[in-house]
């Protein structure tokens, strides 16, 4: 990396300050609005009330966060693995790509609201349908990212490798895969945020417990503060996952000239 493109130094904490400030700012404005406007807490509860609710319901929230995290992680792991394996297959067999890619696009166009109840009916109320739904929602961005990433490989580098007698597999491993990593990580960061949303949605369609169930029940009981408390927990969880993805990106391709943003 050319020295002027280095990110400013000062430790992650210091660099996170502006972000923390802006989030705090937004919360303060929201709190002030609720207090001044006197809007009904049934429509919009104050952040302070939401915080209080998180604290007082902490055990219930935690008990329901665990299944959601589990579904998210398992589903996302499945999704990334499947996307990866498929991307390799499609990359190696262009005929297969032309035959299957549109099918995957179609799989992606199926509206969740129609698919989720079916999944639940077919696979029961346990982890399986949630994992499958998370995978279904997140696997396509990964597939596109990988496919476009492969396509971004420099032809010169590929030709060089082939001149060395590299097999199709070696070309893939040494050129196409590394070239795809920036795209892969962009896709990873996009789809990890969808993963949690999908898990919660899957719970909504039928589950014993989970943040989706908390949200659904709180909503039906006219408890927007509890809805928002669950939302806050899910956001925090997504943020963590995103942070892990971003960290992974920094570790794996951060040294490259052209690294990811933020």
């Amino acid at each position: 990396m050319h020295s002027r493109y280095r990110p400013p130094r000062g430790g992650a904490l210091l660099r996170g300050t502006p972000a923390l400030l802006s989030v705090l700012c937004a919360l303060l404005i929201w709190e002030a609005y609720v207090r001044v406007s006197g809007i009904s807490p049934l429509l919009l509860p104050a952040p302070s009330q939401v915080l209080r609710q998180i604290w007082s319901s902490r055990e219930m929230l935690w008990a329901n966060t665990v299944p959601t995290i589990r579904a998210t992680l398992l589903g996302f792991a499945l999704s990334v693995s499947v996307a990866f394996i498929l991307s390799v297959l499609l990359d190696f067999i262009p005929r297969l790509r032309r035959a299957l890619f549109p099918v995957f696009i179609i799989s992606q166009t199926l509206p969740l609201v129609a698919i989720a109840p079916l999944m639940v009916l077919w696979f029961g109320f346990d982890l399986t349908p949630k994992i499958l739904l998370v995978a279904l929602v997140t696997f396509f961005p990964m597939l596109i990212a990988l496919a476009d990433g492969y396509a971004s490989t420099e032809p010169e580098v590929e030709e060089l490798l082939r001149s060395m007698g590299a097999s199709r597999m070696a070309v893939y491993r040494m050129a196409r895969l590394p070239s795809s990593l920036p795209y892969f990580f962009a896709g990873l960061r996009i789809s990890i945020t969808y993963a949690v949303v999908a898990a919660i949605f899957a719970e909504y369609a039928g589950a014993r417990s989970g943040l989706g169930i908390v949200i659904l029940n709180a909503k039906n009981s006219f408890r927007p503060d509890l809805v928002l408390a669950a939302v806050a927990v899910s956001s925090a969880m997504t943020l963590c996952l995103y942070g892990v993805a971003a960290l992974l990106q920094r570790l794996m391709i951060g040294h490259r000239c052209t690294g990811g943003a933020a």
Partner: protein
Amino acid sequence: GESVAVALDWTPNTNHVGLYVAQAKGWFDEAGLDVEILPYTDTSAGALMSSGVAQFGILSSVGFLSQRAAGADLQVVLGVVQHDTGRLVFDGERDDIQRPADLDGMTYAGFGSEWETALIRTMIQSDGGAGEFETVTLGTSAYEALASGAVDFTLEIVTWEGVHADLLGRSQRGFVYADWGVPPQQTTLLGADAGWVAANADAAGAFVKAVQRGYGFALDHPAEAAEILIEQSGGMLTDPDLVHGSMEMLVRDGFLKDPGEPVGHVDADMMARLGQFLFDSGALRGPGGQVLDELPDLTGWVTNAFLAPEAPET
């Protein structure tokens, strides 16, 4: 005319027949109202009323009590049915379910409200059971789940899902809540945004009377009302047998009118007893989510003030 929106509690069914008849017959127009029957969506009628999106909405009495206790400014203005149409149902072929106590440890397909637990637990416990069962929140998928055997039991509206199951030849059995320790209730009601009603008493009265006339018409002409419902519901109700069968049951079993009362009458005492029951079960929570430690005063939660005293001409 005045714009009024009504929210539904479920996809169009015979519980809504009065609304569609009034709409089709032009009685809303006659009353100077511009009425829109909002399609059923994932957002509850109670929520739509308290946020001002709708002025009226179809509610269940248990739902109404919980929402009002939680601070929603709702008021019941008409009773759609006079008696309990709710049933706890399960697969009739199952020998292991003979009485509510057998439900202990089984799986219930729920709709995501707290009163469900209170109601079912009461039924099981009144039969000597522990009242322990597992809830899977399925919402609109509950009946598919019951049919496919994924769950053991759920709640239904006997005049709709019950008729449907009969038509399909599915053997289905059920328990009447009131047989097992739950006070009797008018399962389905017409509710209103109380603030709006107070400010627009004339329009509210006109609306409720038009709806009352609709249900009155359905009482007198069930077949014609069924046809109107089929026609008005936008192509969703393609099974005429279901609609007609349901209308016939509503009329035959006296769900739509009690002798000596006008169509649409709301029984405040019945509501008060149901409220007491929910309170005793700890199913009523206040605006902050705390379990109420004092039964609120229920006066004014329901009113017959907007109804015509006798069933209007149909």
